[in-house]
């Protein structure tokens, strides 16, 4: 096995103070290494909850960079500030009474049409989502496209924090996705069939029977149960239909 090489140390600036930290750390772990204990600004530590959106600069650059603190590795000279997540106002609605249209979304978020196409939102997204493109999709009424483009959004709020027109992009995207899911996608027929059976008590006797088995009986049924092949298409049917 290869010898462990000692980590290189880099200088970083947390809220302007210099700290020396190993170069292999993420921003999140570098704060902890430096002595900070997170309360805000740390959630899943796995790049999905959106609690740790962070802004930073590299030395000599005028650009504001963005990233999730739990995913971004430190670099020498990095100047870091974490602005705690602050909630943007969210429209309250009864999904049943919202049409899957641009007009309905605009009624809840009137600033939608204020988008000036500056693309700051897209540049601010740590998830590399084309934010401005999904806003454009919303404006032209293509909710499906907006849902598709925004699907990986972690709602960290960096787009909204930097938008000069003060759009609440991530809330609009959430609304669009829910409308697409609830109103623009066919409901699953097989699911409705199954829930009807459940409500009618169709499976009760089969489950009574399973619950009455002792461990040996259960083991036998478990071992003998037919396993759907991995590679087969969705239309596979088992040989034994007794418990279906």
């Amino acid at each position, binding site marked *: *096995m*290869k010898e462990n090489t000692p980590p290189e140390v880099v200088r970083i600036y947390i809220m302007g103070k210099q700290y020396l930290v190993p170069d*292999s*750390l993420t921003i999140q772990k570098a704060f902890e*290494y*430096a*002595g*900070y*204990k*997170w*309360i805000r600004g*740390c*959630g*899943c*530590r*796995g*790049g*999905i*909850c959106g*609690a740790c959106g962070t802004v930073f600069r590299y030395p000599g650059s005028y650009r504001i960079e963005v990233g999730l603190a739990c*995913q971004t590795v430190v670099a020498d000279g990095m100047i870091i500030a974490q602005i705690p*997540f602050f909630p943007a106002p*969210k429209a*309250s609605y009864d*999904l049943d009474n919202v049409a899957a249209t641009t007009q309905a979304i605009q009624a809840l978020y009137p600033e939608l049409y204020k988008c000036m196409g500056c693309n700051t939102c897209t540049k601010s997204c740590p998830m*590399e989502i084309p934010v401005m493109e999904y806003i454009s999709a919303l404006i032209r009424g293509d909710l499906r496209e907006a*849902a598709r483009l925004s*699907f*990986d959004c*972690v*709602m960290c709020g960096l787009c909204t924090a930097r938008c000069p027109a003060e759009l609440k992009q991530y809330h609009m995207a*959430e609304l669009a*996705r*829910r409308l*697409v*899911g*609830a*109103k623009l996608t066919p409901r*699953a*027929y*097989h*699911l*409705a069939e*199954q*829930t009807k059976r*459940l409500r009618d008590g169709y*499976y009760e006797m*089969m*489950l009574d029977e*399973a619950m009455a088995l002792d461990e040996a009986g259960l*083991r036998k*049924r*478990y071992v003998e*149960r*037919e396993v*759907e092949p991995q590679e087969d298409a*969705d239309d596979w*049917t088992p040989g034994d239909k007794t*418990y*279906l």
Partner: protein
Amino acid sequence: MGYTRELLELIKKVEATRPERIARAKAGQDFPPLSLDGRQERLHYHPDYKDEGRRELTIGPSKGYALCHEIADLLEARPFIDPDQIDVTHADYETDVLVLGGGGAGTSAALLANEQGARVIVATKLRHGDANTMMAEGGIQAATKVGKDSPYYHYLDVIGGGHFKNVPELVRTLVTEAPLVIEWLEGMGCLLSKTPDDESGSLRVAHGGGTCRKRMHFAADITGAEIMRTLRDEARNRAEAIEVLEFNPAVELILNEHGHCCGAVLFNLETRQTYVVRAKAVVMATGGSGRLHVQGFMTTNHYGATADGIVMAYRAGVPVCFLHAVQYHPTGAVFPEQAEGLLITEKVRGFGANVVNVDGEQFVFEREPRDVEAASIIRECLEVGKGVPTPTGKVGVWLDSPMIDTLHGPGFVEREFPGKFILFKRYGIDISKQPMLIYPTLHYQNGGLVYNSNCETTVPGLFSAGEVSGGVHGENRLMGNSLLDVTVFGRIAGREAAQYAKWKFQEGRPHLDHVRDYEKQRRRANVGEERISPILLPDYVSQQVKDKRLEVVW
């Protein structure tokens, strides 16, 4: 960035055996799964089976029960608050139902309690939705495919995966409510993946470890996030009836003179003020305990997973079960270092990726139940010695994700695993072309508070839902049953708590005497003087800083 030269050399061995493995997969020739006896033997390599890893509890309702030191330490610690310093007869907040925890179970409970007409307060340690639910990737199980699957088969799978130890009535509830939960989510617009351009809206399903039918529903590889943000959005739509107190974890339950639960003491993490919440019913939905790093394992869990709910409810008299069984997810990332412990969804194996050793050889069927899969990987690395060494001195095995594009068509990995694809791309690794280096990682608390299928605990007025509870998964939870658990039992807990608040609640003098009594027991047993629980957050501050810290109040 990307793989080191040494690792790139080793990847060539995986590439060398890949064509043959793909040919076998296409011919339907899986690596032979272990028999039940074979599984049992393999489990001796599982961390749970180490005797030195556990001890018997010396106090409380489950005295004599052996579980891991890390949880035992917290159950035997001093309380976070001094009962004599808090006046619980004066309430800062009053509500019908108090939900502790703002993850999937807590939010489901809040929604259902609200639908019963209850006013709800949700108290949560981090933000609403910063929870393990958010991080669940692979899917949610439900027997929705009429004609090839039924709750009966789901029942068998859950019980078999749990070593036949599960509480049967809880399993029955889980599997029969499952399709109803999927319907509920579909109605709220949750974007579960469906077959494209299919007018009958057919939901896509995949296998998971230990399933006999493909019944894993998913939303690409961020199923938990999609479910969590949908539930949270819906709760926020009802903000007038569901008040959420963020960064305000509960630190102790309040009982009344009848011994019923009637609220909790909250702790404002920023101002350090305590609040007393008076409620007619309380739902415990505080989740798991991965951040206790049992036996030093890395974890996939979120920052707040510190067993708080177990500690509070145990002091209030609720026994625990199945906490001796800790789930290690077989596939946590071990490279690059920044991603260590990060969950690689089981769905990668569900779609056919093999697990192979340093020589590129298969040594385990890739869809064994999680404990068996994890034990097999640990054995291959530590016992057989065919692990892959990492640059930081750790060891792992390969998860051969590039197989998936060959089996299912180019672009499949990027489309089905967008989250992981982007993440690894940042580290210079294309997982559709290069395998991932993985090792088991602490993932799930199989056990927890004893409860029944109405989510009632032994303390009237206290309901329990989600990872904090134990019994439904037996000794080992199958993939896709935790998102199901939080939604099924979250909904039941919310509904039952609201009904209890309406019909069964009895007014009575609130107190913290159970905390005083527990303290007496602890002193008598002479344990835990040096620790305080719940710990609320793990401490990752480096030792070099702690050594020079001044512990002064100023």
